[in-house]
C-alpha cells in the first residue's frame, strides 16, 4: 500500500527545485504575473471596507450627515463589487495557472515514459509510475492554488493591516501586536504537534490498510484455519490505535482553532479596555476603534493558516523532487543514426554473434548464443520454458541491450540503428495479444501512422490484410465492424479473436523481419484452424523467428533452433532433428506425444 517514501518530509522551500518549477511555469508566466498582481490587489481592497466604516461613523453617523452616509454606502458598494470581481479573477487565474502547469507536467511525464526502456519498467511497478503522473502532478498544482501564491497575498494582508493600524493609532497598534508573538508561538506549537499526530495517523492507516488487504487476499487461509476471531482481534488493535491517533490529532487541531478564536476575542477586550481609554482621551476616534476591532480579526487568520500552507508546500516539494527525478532518468536505450537500407548487402536478416545476456541482477539467460536468419528464412525457436526464447525476440528489437556479443539486423549492430527505424524494420508480436481500448480499426493500424512502408493506404488495403489474416469474417460479425469498440484489454473478445487481431495487426504493420511469440493459451478448434492459416500468411516473404508452440508452425519452418541452457544446442529441419533423437526429439514427445511410426 503505502511505500516508505510516502513518509519523507521535504523542505517547504528548496532553491534548486524552485528554479526547475519556475522553468515549468515559464510558458504561463503571464498568468503567474497576473496572479502575483491580483493577490496583493485583492488583499489591499479587502482592507478598504473597515476604513470606510470608520469614516462613515466618524464623519457622518456621529454628526448626523445622512447624505454623506449615503455617499459612503455607495463607496462601500463599489468596494464590494470591486472585491467580488477581483476575487473571481484571482480564483480563476490561480486555478488556471495550476491546472495548466499540471497539464504540462503530466504531458512531459507521459512523453518521457514513452522514451524509457524496458529495464526501467522492470524496476518501477506500474502503480508507482501512475502516482508520479497523477498524484504528484496534482500536489504541485496545489502548491499554486493554495500554497505559494496565497502566501504572497497573506504577507500583503499582514503588512497592510500593520500599516493601517499604526497610522490609526500607533500606541493601540503596539498593544495589539503584543498578542502576535503569543499567537505565533501557540500556532507553531499546536501545528507541529498536530503534524506529528497526522504522521502517526498516516502510518497507522497504512498499517491498517496493509493488514486489511492481506486479510482480503488471504481470506481463505483465515477461514480454513478458523482464525476469524484472532484476526478480528488483531484488526481491532490496529483499528483502535488508528482511532486513538486520530483523536490525539483532533486535540491539537481543535485546540489551535479554539485558542486563535479566543485570542481574537481577547484582542477585542484589550482594544476595548485600552482603545476605549484612547477614545475618551480623544486620541482615537470612535470609528477608529471600530475599525481597529475589524482589522485585528483579519490579522489573526493568516497567522493561523500559515502552518497549513507550509504543509502544502512541503508536500509539493516532495512531489516535485520525485517528478523531476523521473524526468531526469535518461533512457538507457538510445539509438544510433542508422535508419535502414543496408550499407552493404547483408547475407543475414538477423545475426546473433556470441550473445550473452542477463537480466539486471539475474543469472545469464543466454550464453554465447550464435545463429543467423536468412532474408526470407522461417526459423522456429524451441526449448523448455524459461530458457530465454522470449529474450531472443526482445534482443532483436532492442528491448534490452546485450551483456556481451552483438545482435546485427541487416548487417548493422542494433545499437547503431535508430531505435524507431529498427522497430519498424523488425516487428515483434508478443505472446499475450494486448488490445487497447478503442475501435478495432485503431487496434489494427497501431503503427501505420509511423510511416511504415508497404501495406498501402485506405480501407481497401485494410480489408485485404484482414482477409489474409482470416479476420475479415470475425470483424464483419462484430457490431459496428471495424468501428466496434474494444473494451479494456479486449475483455469483450474471445482469446481466439484477440490472437487473430494481433496477427492481422502485424500483417498491416508489415515489417521486413518478424519475431513472433506464439500464444500458448488454448483456443477452440475453429479459431485454431483460422490462426494456423493466418500465421502461414504472416510468415510469407519475410525473415522470421517464431517461438513456436504449434506443431504446424514448427513443421513448416525452414530451420529449427533448439535453445537449451542459454545456448543453441541443435539446429536443422524437423525430420532431421527428430531422427537425431536429441533434445528436440524429447521436447517433441513431451509436447505432442510419440511420433507415429
Amino acid at each position, binding site marked *: 500500500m503505502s511505500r516508505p517514501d510516502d513518509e519523507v518530509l521535504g523542505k517547504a522551500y528548496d532553491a534548486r527545485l524552485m528554479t526547475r518549477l519556475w522553468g515549468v511555469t515559464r510558458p504561463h508566466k503571464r498568468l503567474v504575473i497576473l496572479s502575483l498582481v491580483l493577490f496583493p490587489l485583492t488583499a489591499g481592497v479587502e482592507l478598504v471596507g473597515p476604513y470606510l466604516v470608520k469614516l462613515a461613523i466618524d464623519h457622518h453617523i456621529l454628526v448626523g450627515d445622512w447624505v454623506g452616509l449615503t455617499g459612503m*454606502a455607495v463607496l462601500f458598494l463599489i468596494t464590494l463589487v470591486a472585491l467580488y470581481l477581483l476575487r473571481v479573477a484571482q*480564483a480563476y487565474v490561480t486555478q488556471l495557472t495550476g491546472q495548466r502547469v499540471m497539464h504540462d507536467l503530466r504531458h512531459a511525464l507521459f512523453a518521457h515514459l514513452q522514451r524509457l526502456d524496458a529495464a526501467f519498467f522492470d524496476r518501477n511497478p506500474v502503480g508507482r509510475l501512475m502516482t508520479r503522473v497523477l498524484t504528484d502532478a496534482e500536489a504541485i498544482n496545489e502548491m499554486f492554488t493554495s500554497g505559494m501564491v496565497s502566501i504572497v497575498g497573506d504577507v500583503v494582508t499582514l503588512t497592510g493591516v500593520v500599516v493601517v493600524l499604526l497610522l490609526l493609532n500607533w500606541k493601540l497598534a503596539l498593544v495589539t501586536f503584543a498578542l502576535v508573538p503569543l499567537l505565533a508561538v501557540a500556532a507553531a506549537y499546536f501545528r507541529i504537534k498536530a503534524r506529528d499526530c497526522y504522521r502517526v495517523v498516516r502510518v497507522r492507516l497504512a498499517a491498517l*490498510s496493509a493488514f486489511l488487504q492481506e486479510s482480503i487476499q488471504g481470506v481463505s487461509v483465515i477461514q480454513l*484455519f478458523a482464525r476469524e476471531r484472532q484476526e478480528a482481534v488483531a484488526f481491532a488493535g490496529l*483499528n483502535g490505535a488508528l482511532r486513538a491517533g486520530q483523536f490525539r490529532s483532533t486535540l491539537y487541531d481543535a485546540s489551535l482553532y479554539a485558542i486563535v478564536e479566543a485570542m481574537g476575542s481577547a484582542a477585542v477586550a484589550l482594544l476595548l479596555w485600552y482603545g476605549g481609554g484612547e477614545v475618551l482621551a480623544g486620541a482615537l476616534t470612535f470609528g477608529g476603534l471600530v475599525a481597529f476591532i475589524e482589522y485585528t480579526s483579519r490579522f489573526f487568520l493568516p497567522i493561523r493558516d500559515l502552518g497549513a500552507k507550509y504543509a502544502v508546500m512541503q508536500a509539493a516539494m516532495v512531489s516535485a523532487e520525485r517528478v523531476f527525478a523521473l524526468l531526469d532518468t535518461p533512457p538507457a536505450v538510445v539509438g544510433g543514426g542508422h535508419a535502414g537500407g543496408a550499407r552493404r548487402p547483408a547475407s543475414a536478416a538477423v545475426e546473433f554473434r556470441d550473445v550473452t545476456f542477463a537480466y539486471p541482477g539475474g543469472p545469464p539467460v543466454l550464453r554465447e548464443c550464435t545463429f543467423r536468419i536468412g532474408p526470407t528464412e522461417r526459423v522456429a525457436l524451441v526449448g523448455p520454458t524459461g530458457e530465454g526464447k522470449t529474450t531472443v525476440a526482445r534482443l532483436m528489437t532492442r528491448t534490452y541491450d546485450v551483456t556481451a556479443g552483438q545482435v546485427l539486423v541487416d548487417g548493422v549492430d542494433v545499437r547503431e540503428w535508430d531505435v524507431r527505424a529498427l522497430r519498424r524494420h523488425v516487428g515483434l508480436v508478443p505472446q499475450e495479444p494486448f488490445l487497447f481500448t478503442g475501435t478495432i480499426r485503431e487496434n489494427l493500424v497501431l503503427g501505420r501512422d*509511423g510511416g511504415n512502408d508497404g501495406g498501402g493506404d485506405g480501407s481497401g488495403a485494410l480489408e485485404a490484410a484482414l482477409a489474409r489474416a482470416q479476420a475479415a469474417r470475425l470483424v464483419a460479425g462484430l457490431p459496428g465492424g471495424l468501428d466496434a469498440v474494444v473494451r479494456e484489454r479486449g475483455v469483450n473478445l474471445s482469446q481466439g479473436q484477440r490472437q487473430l487481431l494481433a496477427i492481422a495487426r502485424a500483417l498491416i504493420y508489415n515489417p521486413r523481419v518478424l519475431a513472433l511469440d506464439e500464444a500458448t493459451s488454448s483456443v477452440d478448434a475453429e479459431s485454431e484452424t483460422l490462426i494456423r492459416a493466418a500465421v502461414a500468411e504472416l510468415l510469407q516473404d519475410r525473415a522470421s523467428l517464431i517461438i513456436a508452440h504449434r506443431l504446424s508452425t514448427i513443421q513448416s519452418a525452414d530451420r529449427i533452433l533448439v535453445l537449451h541452457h542459454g545456448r543453441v544446442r541443435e539446429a536443422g529441419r524437423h525430420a532431421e532433428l527428430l531422427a537425431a533423437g536429441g533434445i528436440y526429439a524429447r521436447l517433441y514427445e513431451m509436447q505432442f506425444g510419440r511420433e507415429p511410426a
Partner: protein
Amino acid sequence: MSPVRRFLRYLRPYRARYLAGLACLLLATTFSLAIPWTLKEAVDALGREGAHRALVAYAGIILALAVLHGAARLGSRFSIIGAGQWVEHDLRRDLYRTLLRQPAAFYHAQRTGDLMSRATSDVANVRALAGFGSVMLSQTTLAFAGTLIAMASIDPWLTLWAISPTPLLVVTIKRFGQAVDDQSTAVQEQLGVLSAKVQENLAGMPVVRAYTMETRELDHFARLNAEYLARSVRLARTQAGFWPLMGLVGGLGGLIILWLGGRAVVEGRISLGAFVAFNGYLAYLAWPTVALGWTLAVARRGFSSIQRIAEILDAGDSGGLTAPDGARPISSTISGGPETAPALPPSAYDARDASVPAGAIEFRHVTFAYPGRDAALRDVSFTVPAGALVVVVGPTGSGKSTLGVLLARLYDPPSGTVFVGGRDVLDLPVGALRGALGYVPQEAFLFSRSLRENTRLADDDASEARVRAAAVTAGLAEEVEVFPGAWDTVVGERGLTLSGGQRQRVALARALLREAPYLVLDDVFAAVDPAKEMEILRALREALRTRTTLAATHRLRIAELADWIVVLDEGRVVEQGRHAELLAAGGLYARLWRIQQIEAELEQA
C-alpha cells in the same frame, strides 16, 4: 434499511457524547453571541459617566466570555469529532467482521481494490459526516438562529433588512451547488479516464515499443489530458464565480447595516453600540455562510458512502446459510455474487469442539461448476479409505484442486456428494469441518508476519518443539534456522521474500501442526526441486500414516507412494488404480509419467 437510519444506528451508542457536544455548541454560540452584545453595552457606556471603570468591567466580561467560548467550543469538538471517530471505528470493525465471513463466491465477484476503498475512503467519508460535518451542520444552524434572535431583539426591522439578501444566498447555493457538483463529477470521471489511459499504456508498453506507437500514444494522452484541463477550467470558472458570490452576499448585509443602520443611529432609533453589535453579528455569520456549500457536500458524500458500505454489510446480514443445525444451504453452486452467496453466520464457527470423526473421505457422483463457468468436475466418484493416501493426478485444469476446495467447503458441493468420516460435509459445522482438516493450497499464502506466527496459524499456543517438528517434517527447519532472524524472520512485502518452494513448505508445516485427521495437499511440490521433494516425501511418510490424505499433483513422485491413484482429465475420472497397473495400462497416467521422465532427462542434457 435507509442510509439515514443505518447512520443513526451507528450514532446511537454515542448519543451521550452527541448530546454533550450539542450542549457545548449551544453554550459556545451563546457565549460568542454575547460578545458583540457586551461590545454594544460598552460602546454605549463610552458616552456616559464613569466610562473608564465601565470599560474595564466590560473588557473583563469579554475576556471571560472569550475563555468560556473557547472552552465550550473545544468541548463540542472533542465530543462530536471524537464520537465521529468512534463511529468510523465501529463501522470499520463491522465491515471487517463481515468480510471475514464471506464465502469464496463473494470474493469471486469483488475486486480487492473496491473492497479496500469501501473500508478506507468510504468509512472516512462517514467519519467526516458523523464528526466535523455534524459539528458544522449544528453550528451553522445555531449560529443563524442565535444571530437572528440577538439582532431581532435589538431592532427587528433592521434585522429584516440585514437578512434580506439571504434568499439570494439560497438561490446561489442551489444553482451553483448543483453545477459545482456536476462539474466536479465530470472532472473526476475524466481523471478516471486519464488514469485508465496511463495504466493501459504502462501495461501495454511492450506493444507500444514493438509497434513504435509512442507518438500515437502521446497524442491520445494529450487529447485526454487537454479534456481534463478543459473540464477542470470549467469547474474553476464556476467555483471562481461561486465562493466570492457568497462573500458578496454577506457584504451586502454589511452595506445595508452601514447605510440603514447608520441612518437609524442618526435618527436615534438605535444606539451606536447597537450599530457596532449589528456589524459584529454579521461578521459572525460570514464563515458559516461561506462554509455552507462545503458542509452540504460533506453530508451528501457521507450518505452515499453509507450506502456503499451497507451493500457489504447487508451481504453478511442476509443470512440463509445455517450450517450448525444441519439445514441445507440455499446458495447454489452455479450462481455467484454477494446477493446469492450469503455469509456464514458467526455461530457457524463457534462449533469447533463439535468433533468430526476420523475416517474415510468419499466423493459420490460429484458434478460441480464455479459460478459462470463450465463444470470443473463431472460425475466424480472415489474413496480415500481411512488412513490411506490417495493421489489425484491430471493435467492443468483437470479439476484436481476443486476436490480439496469442496472438501473444505470453500465452495459448497451439491448435497449428498462429499462425505467425511461418513457424514455429508454440508451437515457439519464449517468450523468443525475445517478444524479436522489440514489443507495446503496450491498458492501458499503467507501473512506479513514472522515465520513462527505463519506456521502457528492453526494453534497460537503450539510449543516451540511442535513448530520445529512440523517444520522438520516439511523440510523447512534447516533453512529457517540459518535465516538471521530464524523463526522471528518476518516474511512478505516488507520482510524476507521466500522462494515459491519455501512458501509451500511453510504452508505444509502449518497444516501438519494442526494435528487433524484429514490432510489435503494441493500440488504442494510444484515449486520444489525433485531432490528436495524426495526428502520431504520420506519425512512425510510417517505423518501420513496417521491421517487420511488426499493429494492432488501433476508431479508424479508422490503417486508412487500412493495407496491408490485417480487420474482426472477435463473433470472426469479417466483411470484409477495402483502405480504399476496404471503404467502397464499405457493410458494418460503412463503418458504423464513419460513426460516427467523426459523432463528429468532434459535437466541432465
